[in-house]
């Protein structure tokens, strides 16, 4: 008999699951809400929202500990999990089987998107003062290019799907939902939650447009 604390497998899997929601998922919700402020214009966005965040003490530490490390673990371990997948989408055309595949595919997609997104905003902002000082303008410039808008939209939808579907399977993994009915009901709740988040995110993206 192996004690679950002696064998890290279970705790790592659960940690991966938990980090996906807290703090990574929670940060996504916050991030989408924060950027939905774009509709109030550059002055409000740059002056109130971004400045408030940039003015926080220990910001880099918070960013690293609350966002970057959990995200990196979630992504890295997620890739490890994904190697176990042998999905046969045409043989088993069930919704959950597609969601199972999409969860993993979206994870990889999000990883690519985030490298670009973080590179073009947070990292670029480190040495380009203009990005730091007028993030609104920077985003407006980016999103005005249709292909870039498409990239961001894809990244947004993948992220929102990944969070909503992840939440629904978390219900099973952690034992919140057991019966097929409960799992279906919670699935709809998560789908609604995902749609709401997508709407907030899209609203924020449109808010940047001139």
């Amino acid at each position, binding site marked *: 008999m192996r004690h679950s604390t002696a064998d890290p497998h279970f705790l790592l899997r659960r940690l991966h699951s938990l980090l996906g929601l807290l703090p990574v998922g929670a940060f996504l919700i916050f991030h989408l809400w924060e950027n939905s402020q774009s509709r109030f214009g550059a002055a409000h966005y740059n002056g109130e929202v971004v400045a408030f965040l940039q003015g926080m003490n220990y910001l880099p530490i918070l960013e690293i500990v609350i966002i970057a490390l959990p995200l990196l673990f979630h992504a890295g371990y997620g890739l490890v999990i994904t190697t176990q997948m042998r999905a046969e989408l045409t043989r088993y055309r069930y919704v*959950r089987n597609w969601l199972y595949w999409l969860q993993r595919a979206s994870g990889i997609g999000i990883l690519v998107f985030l490298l670009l997104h973080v590179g073009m905003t947070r990292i670029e902002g480190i040495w380009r003062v203009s990005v730091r000082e007028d993030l609104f303008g920077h985003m407006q410039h980016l999103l005005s290019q249709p292909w870039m808008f498409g990239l961001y939209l894809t990244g947004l939808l993948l992220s929102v799907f990944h969070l909503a579907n992840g939440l629904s399977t978390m219900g099973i993994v952690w034992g919140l939902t*057991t019966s097929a009915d409960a799992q279906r009901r919670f699935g709809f709740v998560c789908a609604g939650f995902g749609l709401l988040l997508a709407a907030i995110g899209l609203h924020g993206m449109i808010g940047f447009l001139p």
Partner: protein
Amino acid sequence: MPANRTSIRFKIRRQDAPGSPPYWQEFAIPYAPDHNVISALMVVQNNPVTTDGQRVAPVVWDRNCMEEVCGSCAMLINGVPRPSCSALIDSLTQPIVLEPLPKFPVVRDLLVDRSRIDEGLRKVRAWIEIDGAWDTHEGAPRISPSEWSANYLYSRCMSCGCCLSACPQFGPHSDFIGPAALAQVRLMNAHPTGRYDQADRLHAIMGDGGVSDCGNAQNCVRVCPKSIPLTTAIGELGRQTTVQAVKDLFGG
């Protein structure tokens, strides 16, 4: 079902031995409305001549009860894992494509080695610890009818392996124990004396290849010929392992 059928056609994936290359052969037998895949394979076995007129070795496959309780005869029929005894010819599109149950090593033709199912049951300790198979002169604990009817669903698992074949996480590439053994943990943990060893069984499925390797694709529950609520069992084990982990971490 088309009325003008005159023959039953099969396309069968064959393999002479483990490791030897698979190949396809086609067979046709005279049509009859009351055939299932096994009875039709028996006709092929009597006279194993391919549609090209070539006499070949009889097709090797596994069967026993032919009533869908022994679990022997599962194979991939038109791409879906299912018992062949209950696969009625009239409900299948032709040519009927037969392949060995995937994810398990092929022994020969449609016969596969499913010993991994047994290993899984051993690993999760899917039994009730009893002192011995003798009389104890005492009645066993009571079980309410509603609890019974939930348990009974799981006790009908016949280790056919269909759920494992359909599971995208299970296979030679992974340690995942699969839904069949997990459902037995759910069953044993629900028994009044089986509960005594719940922690042992949970620890057995909290390691590598355990319940957390499930990816929730839920194909298992869709292909199970006995409609066993495998995903409910996995959800319930999620709950039990959550509690167990809290006990392990903070319980002393």
